């Protein structure tokens, strides 16, 4: 037992070391990619960043701040130095550090995102299981139609339709705005349930498709046949034997859908005027607040890479075959 545990530990360490060695260059290219965004600005970047401001002193200050008078590689080194110490620069509009802006908006999106994931799991997984178990029946077609609808509906359209139905016609839910959970949880849930559903809709469709194919595969496996041959009820076979094995990879898939979630949050938050991470990037784009845009993309990419690593490790931990 002890030896096995030690071996497992060593294998895990090797795996971790290997994955982290892969992450470092990826993060480096992410930083280069995001830094190079500002090279795309047409004309003199200092002038563009200053926007409406025509005061030469302000423009000169921006030039100094971003080292725009230095060669590009030097600018990159200065920028990276800042980023590595948690300094993403400051917003040109309200003079707040980008880091603080992000820290302020992130919890809002976190709440919205967790609710969306929860909704997606509650719809997507049962729908996937039912359509696999009842393959070829009306249930299966219904679930597949639902998945197609979920994948093909632009979430900003769905959001607008829901606002029309639930806020304007029925008057049940607020059309926009946000209340923090800690302030008033009822009002907070009322304000976020529609956007969370809009956000969860597409992900539940993706989850449904993955659950369905994983279940179909498992239902054809030998151990399910054995369980049936033992005379176990179909209910026990599906819920205890098939589902457990089919769902392991689905759980980690949740982490990988973070990109879909954050992309979706941009428009969802815009439509419902929710002051989160997505709204932050849109406002920054409108205000030509380029440091904020870069900061948001950088944080998003880093979170994505980290979550991927966590998902990989979790997958190895729950899957005994990969532990060796």
């Amino acid at each position, binding site marked *: 037992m002890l030896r096995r545990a030690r071996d497992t530990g060593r294998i895990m360490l090797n795996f971790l070391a290997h994955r982290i060695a*892969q992450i470092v*260059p*990826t*993060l*480096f*290219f*992410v930083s*280069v*990619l*995001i830094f190079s*965004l*500002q090279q*795309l*600005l*047409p004309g003199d970047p200092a002038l563009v960043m200053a926007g409406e401001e025509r005061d030469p002193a302000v423009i000169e200050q921006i030039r100094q701040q971003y080292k725009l008078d230095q060669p590009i590689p030097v600018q990159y080194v200065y920028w990276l130095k800042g980023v590595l110490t948690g300094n993403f620069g400051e917003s040109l509009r309200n003079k707040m550090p980008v880091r603080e802006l992000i820290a302020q908006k992130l919890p809002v999106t976190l709440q919205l995102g967790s609710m969306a994931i929860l909704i997606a799991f509650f719809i997507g997984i049962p729908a996937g299981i039912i359509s696999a178990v009842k393959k070829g029946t009306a249930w299966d077609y219904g679930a597949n139609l639902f998945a*197609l*609808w979920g*994948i*093909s*509906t*632009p979430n*900003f*359209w769905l959001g*607008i*339709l829901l*606002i*029309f139905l639930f806020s*304007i016609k029925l008057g049940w839910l607020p059309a926009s705005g946000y209340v923090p959970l800690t302030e008033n949880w009822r009002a907070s849930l009322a304000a976020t349930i529609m956007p969370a559903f809009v956000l969860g809709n597409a992900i539940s469709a993706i989850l449904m498709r993955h659950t369905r194919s994983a279940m179909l595969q498992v239902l054809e496996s030998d151990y399910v046949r054995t369980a049936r041959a033992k005379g176990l009820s179909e209910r026990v076979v599906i819920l205890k034997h098939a589902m457990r094995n089919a769902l392991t990879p689905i759980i980690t898939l949740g982490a990988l859908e*973070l*990109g*879909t979630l*954050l*992309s*979706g949050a*941009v*428009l969802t938050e*815009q*439509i419902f005027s929710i002051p989160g991470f997505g709204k932050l*990037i*849109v406002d*920054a*784009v*409108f205000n*030509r607040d*380029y440091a904020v*845009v*870069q900061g*948001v*993309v950088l944080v*998003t*990419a*880093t979170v*994505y*890479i980290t979550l991927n690593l966590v998902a990989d490790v979790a997958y190895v931990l729950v899957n005994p075959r990969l532990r060796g």
Partner: protein
Amino acid sequence: MTDAALPAAAATQAYELDSPARRARRRLFKRKAAVFGLVVISAFILLAALAPLVVPYDPIATSWSLVRKPPTAAHWFGTDELGRDILSRVVYGARASLMAGLISVAIALGIGVPLGLLAGYRGGFVDALISRITDAMLACPFLILAIALAAFLGPSLGNAMIAIGISATPIFIRLTRGQVLSVKAEDYVEAARALGNPPWRIAFSHILPNILPSLLVQATLSIAAAIIAEAALSFLGLGQQPPAPSWGSMLNAAQRFLTQAPWMAIWPGLAIFLVVLSLNLLGDGLRDALDPRQR
């Protein structure tokens, strides 16, 4: 099944006629969903191409006496906040959306496929470098990267297409590379190499044709994603600029007048939904039809 059931003599006779492409086409046409997708897409392409001939009104002509009128016999889809005919704008909007879908995916294919071929065929340092850059791009969520690129490039339909195209590129690099790795060891590639073909010719005339089916499937699905992305960028004001019509910017206006003129929100959204749904159905159908393991 049916192929195997054919008598041997008939099978050899039919061999010349039954190319893989033809077989795939037959399988595709057997799927009702894929045929539906193909029909709807063709209809939208036709509408977009013939837009000036089919629309009842000038899509940018404003009229103060027609501001926000619900659907009537004269204006089937109603009019918008400036009194413009919504039907005409939806038809013209198809031009922007379909073009954005096609051009941005063409950009993604044009950059992604050569890089994927290079990475997969060369291996070594080149592969490691391209793969890490791909990872870095994939770490930025598709739409967020597209928004950031469009923001820095400046708002216009052309820049939106470039932004979406670049954001869609890493998928094609990764797909091409993976496919190259799996066919690289095949006998026909080995034979082409033994005959002394230069690497670029092996990559383009021996490997590329064999990975085309999977690229075609991905391209179809990517066009759907690109159309949604263009609508999203236009919704945010980063795509097609007013007064030129696009489905995304029409939805933006619709949200502002949702209480007074809800019909404004229906048609552009429905158009996006139908086009994207059809492309997804077609992509799924193509995947099944082109995969030789599927019967």
